[in-house]
């Protein structure tokens, strides 16, 4: 709830998951239930970490929260809208506009320079080439990549690649940034630099950020920690 113009208004949470179950190979011998009913709510402006060991189901959860995968059971609402019934095309649209992904292995497009990589979500959003480029440069400057923005990924270090990836995640000013082990492939010093950028995005731009990690140390830097173990949310 928030108060706008003296009136109390109800703003739905950015993320609201109700009893999410994910089963792989349902109905076969190899049937495997990874998530056993996750209930989760994340409000606008939160910096939340989802912590768990590998195999805990945190990546599966992130894929569902990021609309890359659909839950087997349960309901998932984004900004109050039920995503269960949305067609693939609508999900692509929402991923484009409302979610910014930061992956452990960066997933930058090879042989394509930093600017073009950052422009990509804006290209899919149908922005004009000029506006795209302007914003891409602005974002790359924000993450401190102004010196090397016309370099291709193979000319960049891990930390630099991740900074380009963060700029790309910010391209369409998303409602939520989903960062999956963003420092997992980096040394601790570079990892801290990347974490600093997330803190800045959270504090200065008031971005909602979900950090998926196995590191309690990194999680401790966030406002709220959600522990996940064997496909269930457990108390700390």
């Amino acid at each position: 709830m928030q108060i706008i113009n003296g009136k109390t208004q109800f703003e739905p949470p950015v993320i609201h998951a109700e009893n999410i179950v994910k089963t792989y190979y349902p109905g076969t011998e190899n049937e495997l239930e990874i998530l056993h009913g996750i209930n989760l709510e994340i409000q606008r402006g939160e910096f939340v970490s989802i912590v768990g060991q590998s195999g805990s189901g945190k990546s599966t959860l992130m894929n569902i929260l990021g609309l890359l995968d659909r839950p087997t059971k349960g309901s998932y609402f984004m900004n109050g809208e039920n995503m269960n019934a949305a067609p693939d095309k609508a999900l692509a649209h929402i991923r484009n506009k409302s979610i910014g992904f930061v992956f452990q292995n960066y997933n930058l497009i090879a042989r394509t320079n930093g600017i073009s990589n950052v422009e990509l979500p804006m290209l899919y959003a149908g922005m004009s080439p000029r506006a795209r480029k302007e914003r891409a440069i602005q974002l790359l400057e924000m993450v401190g990549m102004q010196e090397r923005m016309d370099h291709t990924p193979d000319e960049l270090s891990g930390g630099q690649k991740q900074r380009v990836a963060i700029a790309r995640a910010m391209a369409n000013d998303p409602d939520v940034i989903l960062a999956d082990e963003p420092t997992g492939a980096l040394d601790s010093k570079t990892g801290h630099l990347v974490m600093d950028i997330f803190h800045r995005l959270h504090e200065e731009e008031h971005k909602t950020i979900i950090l998926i990690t196995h590191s309690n140390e990194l999680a401790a830097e966030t406002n709220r920690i959600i522990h996940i173990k064997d496909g269930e949310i457990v108390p700390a």
Partner: protein
Amino acid sequence: MILENLKLAIASIKANKMRSFLTMLGIIIGISSVIAIMTVGNSLTKAEQESMSSMGANNIMVGVYSASDDSVTLPTFSEENMQSIVKAYGNRIKAIGMESQVGSGTSRSQVSSDSKTTSVTVDGVNPGYFKANNISIIKGSTFSSSTYESGSNVAIVSDVFAEAIFGSVEDAMGESVEINVDNNYTNYTIVGAYKFENTGTLGTKKSTTFFIPIKAAENQLHNSDIYGFTVVAKDGSDSAALAKDIKTLIKKQIKIEEGVTLYADSMQSYIEEASKMLGTITIAIAMIAGIALLVGGIGVMNIMTVSITERTREIGTRKALGAENYQILLQFVTEAIILCLFGGIIGVIIGVSLGLVAASAIGYAGSISIASVLGSVGFSMAVGLFFGYAPARKAAKMNPIDALRYE
């Protein structure tokens, strides 16, 4: 979006130069062989058309032939047949040329004190023969109607003959030549000279051909059978229709035995038939060459499948960033089309060069078939679209999370 896809496609082709080139090679070989064959075929057709047109595009050949081996008597045509044609269709006719191939023999002429003997061929013709067969009289004139009708002993010789025997065309005029065909000796006075050429009707004759009036051939050499004649339609009149009318008219006038066929064919119909036949042969060979193109297309499909498998994670990333299925489809289809288009353009350049060289090697002026060039470029793009579509669709339909997780 389209521009972006073009940039992406070119970047991707450039990134794997060797692989792109090998893929294009199939298209290059396919297109260049099709184009080379089409160019040779086109050159041949054009040369054939020109050679036939030089014989007179408005000409109608009328004649008889026997298809059977049995000895049949071929009917002959007469002056009366020609007159009836002129009477009936004169307004559609420019000239009628009749020819009776008398035979070969020798000529003897007295030049100063020397007597020169040459082998000659004697043809009895009518005055219209020269016009009908595009033979130009460069000195003197064709037979006047009085000399023609009386069957006077006059002759028209070639410039080559006149120069060889008399020194010049001018000196040959009025000179007398003794002709011996089958021991019939007759003296002829030269009244004109024609320009000998290696093309058209004269191309089938020798420069020692003597033209004399048909009646003269009949009177003195006792041989004036006419087995065929040429009618030249006036420009703009339908020569095929005229040919049909003449055939109907002649059929009533002469007796045609069993096994003998009367024909009246317009040159136009020959040209069309010959072009059609050459065209069919060209297309048949080009289709065989097209198999190379098909193999090339399968190569493109193969490479696109590899390229997409290699870039599965990229596809996943693009989908995570909000690319819709059609955008992924468009990206890879564009890449396949561009790849094939490059191959096609290179193939056209090689094919045209090969075709022109081959055409000139067999002695024809090269003629590029524009339609086949445009068709090939278009077809190579269609190959890209067709063979690129299936792999691209597979990529587009991929589940984003499966694509992202792909190792």
